């Protein structure tokens, strides 16, 4: 701390890891503090036993901040309701995407993300079971990513009797991720609590329609998607099958969604962030 020199207009920090440092710098330098919230402890824990230690750090950072940037209205509500932050202090700036472009679609239904409670991979497997039981369509369900739930998920797919249709890829490289987005026919994001969910934008930017949880920020921002409750695996299966079965549905969401991606640019995010800075300096 002693080594901080120079003149700064604003301190901007992101999530709990950096908040204590941000608060101390603000106090030392007397400069406004902007805090971006990309996720809260409630999201990361899937609302099951959130750790009070993290919550306290987050709360302190948010209280000391002059203004807060939340990645969605969904997150803004959590900050208001769980952290008691005044609404007018929170500015929503949605995330953006670099467009990927389409590939040759294959019969793949994709889950991609950390294999944790928050991301809801077990609901993906339950929906897969419904689809495989009730329809003649037998796609491959790809679970891409790693995480603490991996072995449990493998066991679950064996117990459900669908393991031959499920492919666990482990962690993919950036190139592999882009490739799988491009060739998947449907992307599913069944998150229990997702502040934004850039993966959904990445998928649709590759022409892959997305079925997203209503408890995800992207669900409020993206018009051309199918929304479901993460626990409603019947409806999730209904929507996935419909995308596989009705070509016109797939092509319309895919075309309209790809167009809509133009609205989500990082330049736009930068502009909005600058606006927020101007409001405090």
């Amino acid at each position, binding site marked *: 701390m002693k080594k901080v020199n120079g003149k700064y207009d604003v301190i901007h920090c992101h999530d709990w890891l950096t908040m204590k440092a941000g608060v101390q710098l603000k106090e030392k330098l007397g400069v406004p503090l902007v805090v971006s919230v990309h996720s809260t402890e409630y999201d990361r824990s899937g609302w099951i036993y959130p750790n009070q230690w993290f919550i306290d750090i987050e709360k302190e950072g948010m209280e000391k901040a002059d203004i807060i940037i939340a990645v969605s209205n969904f997150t803004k509500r959590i900050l208001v309701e769980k952290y008691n932050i005044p609404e007018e202090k929170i500015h929503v700036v949605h995330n953006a995407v670099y467009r990927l472009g389409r590939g040759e679609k294959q019969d793949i239904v994709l889950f991609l993300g950390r294999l944790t409670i928050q991301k809801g991979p077990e609901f993906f497997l339950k929906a897969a079971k*419904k689809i495989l039981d009730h329809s003649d369509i037998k796609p491959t369900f790809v679970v891409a990513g790693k995480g603490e739930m991996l072995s449990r998920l493998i066991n679950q797919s064996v117990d459900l009797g669908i393991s031959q249709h499920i492919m666990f890829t482990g962690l993919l490289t950036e190139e592999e991720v882009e490739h799988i987005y491009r060739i998947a026919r449907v992307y599913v994001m069944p998150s229990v609590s997702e502040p934004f969910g850039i993966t959904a934008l990445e998928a649709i930017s590759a022409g892959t329609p997305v079925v997203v949880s209503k408890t995800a920020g992207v669900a409020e921002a993206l018009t*051309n*998607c*199918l929304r479901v409750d993460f626990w409603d695996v019947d409806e999730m299966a*209904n929507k996935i099958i*419909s995308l596989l079965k*009705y070509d*016109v*549905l797939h092509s319309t969401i895919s075309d309209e969604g790809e167009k809509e991606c133009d609205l989500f640019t990082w330049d736009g995010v930068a502009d909005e962030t600058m606006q927020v800075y101007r409001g405090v300096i």
Partner: protein
Amino acid sequence: MTSVCFYFEVHQPMRLNRFSVFNIGKTESPFDYFDNQLNEKIFHKVANKCYLPTNKLLLDLIDQHDKKFRISYSLTGTFIEYCQKHVPEIIDSFKDLVGTGAVDLIEETYFHSLSGLYTDLTEFEEQVYLHNSMLKDLFHVTPKVFRNTEAIYDNRIAKKVADMGYKGIITEGAKKILDWRSPNYVYKAVDNDIKVLLRNYMLSDDIGFRFSAQGWTGFPLTADKYSSWMAQNQGDLINLFMDYETFGEHHWQDTGIFEFLKHLPENVLNHEHMDFVTVRQAVERYEPRGTIDVPWAISWADEDRDVSTWLGNDMQRACFQELQDLGPQIKKEKNQKKLEAWRKLQTSDHLYYISTKGFEDGAVHSYFSHYDSPYDGFINYMNILQDFKQGMKPKP
């Protein structure tokens, strides 16, 4: 003389139940497709906010003005069925209105369908006859003027309607068909002598869309102001066509819409050169001043004033095609229940919910839709059509 021809579309669709792909092939009765609970709830709400109070007000106004205040209605078959089932006093009040002699009824397809756009117009004709006999039975009225679903019109429909014996047909006074010409005259169709009444969309939308828009230069709209606007219009006839739900439902009571309506007749009649006519009187009194040629269908919907509201994307066109293709098979089966369900599925609203049109119109669409998105609307409707196609096999 400039006549004001006030006409209201009165319609409620039969909204569909949630129907997933897992339900396909398991339906016991085709009437299970319809969400009776939701439909009843909405109907009661609109009846109390709009139908009952507006009917009463208009009846009073006709009496007060010694029947010089005249209006016309187009009541869809599905609307009438709702009344019969849930709020029969609405039918009684329409009977009272018709009984004044100052109210005329307009013909249309019973199911408010897009059958006028089918390749084969037999189904269209049958639905018009159904509507015709419904009006005859209930109100003892035989309309002379026809208004197709959402004012959808093209040369082929006009020809068909003329052949069926109607003297007039209503459509939108769209710029693209009128060009420099005014909607405030009667026109005729291109291949025959049916008279065409054209909606004055500026004045109609002042009430229908803009009445409660606070950012609009005309706000607040008073009956006095509005009547003076009409009085400045040149021409024989000002056609004001709008959803009946404009009164009390699209614009709530607290916007002052009923007060506006209450004072409208006296303010119009204060202008000596103005009066009110029903659609029947309009076609009897005025001669055509020109011809309108409409090779591609127009309507009163959205900014485009065409049929893209119902058939603008591939999902809508796929459903429309499925629906149309089911026809010959259902008619062969001679199963009354199936035929009726198929017809209720033809109500244009089901396709309207699937529209993905741009932001401005999209906002209007989502206001009227009970689906989360047009995609949900498509999945639900298409699943039902697939089930219908499978022939309603009994549960295994």
